[in-house]
């Protein structure tokens, strides 16, 4: 009697941090090391694991990098293109991908709200430092928590929060005091 085919056993799972994707996608001194790691995943030495929060952080860093490079805010199709690259890569690499919210709670959505803020917050160019500021993943997590806690204002010294007024009014302590 013929036995049914045995499904392949996944190799050891390696959680992949955001910067590994970034160094692989944007030319950098560490790109070749990231590439060798991903080639090992491709050969089956590891099974990659990541979550939607990685995409949030990646979008935060790359939106800011492109805004600084162009010295102007990005168009929405540029952000979509950034997202498409990492999603296609995760899919084609066979990386195990979790919605970060499902790992935390079957009810509450925290990370998807955070992702929405990172994707849509406005960049701000400070006349004080002449640099661009934009919320990143951890910043946006605070914005979600502040709104859920019922706060009316977000008191901070961090210019990254200037662009979150669609969600909560920033109280910029550098300016007020």
């Amino acid at each position, binding site marked *: 009697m013929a036995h049914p085919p045995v499904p392949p056993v996944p190799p050891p799972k390696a959680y992949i941090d955001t910067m590994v994707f970034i160094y692989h996608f944007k030319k950098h001194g560490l790109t070749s090391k990231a590439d060798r790691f991903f080639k090992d995943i491709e050969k089956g030495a590891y099974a990659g694991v990541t979550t939607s929060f990685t995409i949030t952080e990646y979008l935060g860093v790359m939106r800011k*990098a492109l805004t600084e490079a162009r010295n102007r805010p990005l168009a929405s199709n540029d952000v979509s293109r950034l997202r498409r690259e990492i999603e296609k*890569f995760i899919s084609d690499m066979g990386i195990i991908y979790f919605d970060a919210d499902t790992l935390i709670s079957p009810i509450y959505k925290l990370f998807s709200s955070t992702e929405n803020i990172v994707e849509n917050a406005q960049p701000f160019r400070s006349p004080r430092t002449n640099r661009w500021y934009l919320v990143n993943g951890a910043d946006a997590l605070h914005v979600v928590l502040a709104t859920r806690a019922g706060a009316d204002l977000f008191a901070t010294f961090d210019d990254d929060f200037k662009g979150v007024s669609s969600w909560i009014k920033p109280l910029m302590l550098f300016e007020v005091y």
Partner: protein
Amino acid sequence: MATINIPASPKRYFIFSSRDDTMPLSEKLPGVLTAQINPSGYFSENIADSFYNERLELGEVFYFKMPAPMLRWHQAKKGTASKFQGCLSKIFPELEKISDKALDRLINDMRSREE
């Protein structure tokens, strides 16, 4: 979907519990995910009493379902790593203006508030 046996002591106020499955590797038993159930919360005991769970009091073993990934593991498409190496630098050539040091700063800013 995988199920995991949580060998937790029975506690009464299960509704306010939290799971800690982030134990150091050295404390983990092979193949067993342990969890700590901590009854705690914002509510007074009287309110918590209304969530009394006698099945836990009677020592019943509960099974937690692990959430399923949105994408499951499969063998990578051959050539994917090479195809995507430096992909953003090709799509957005202006990224060349961002030096390694500047990119490292942006990555550090992602997790740290020190500037």
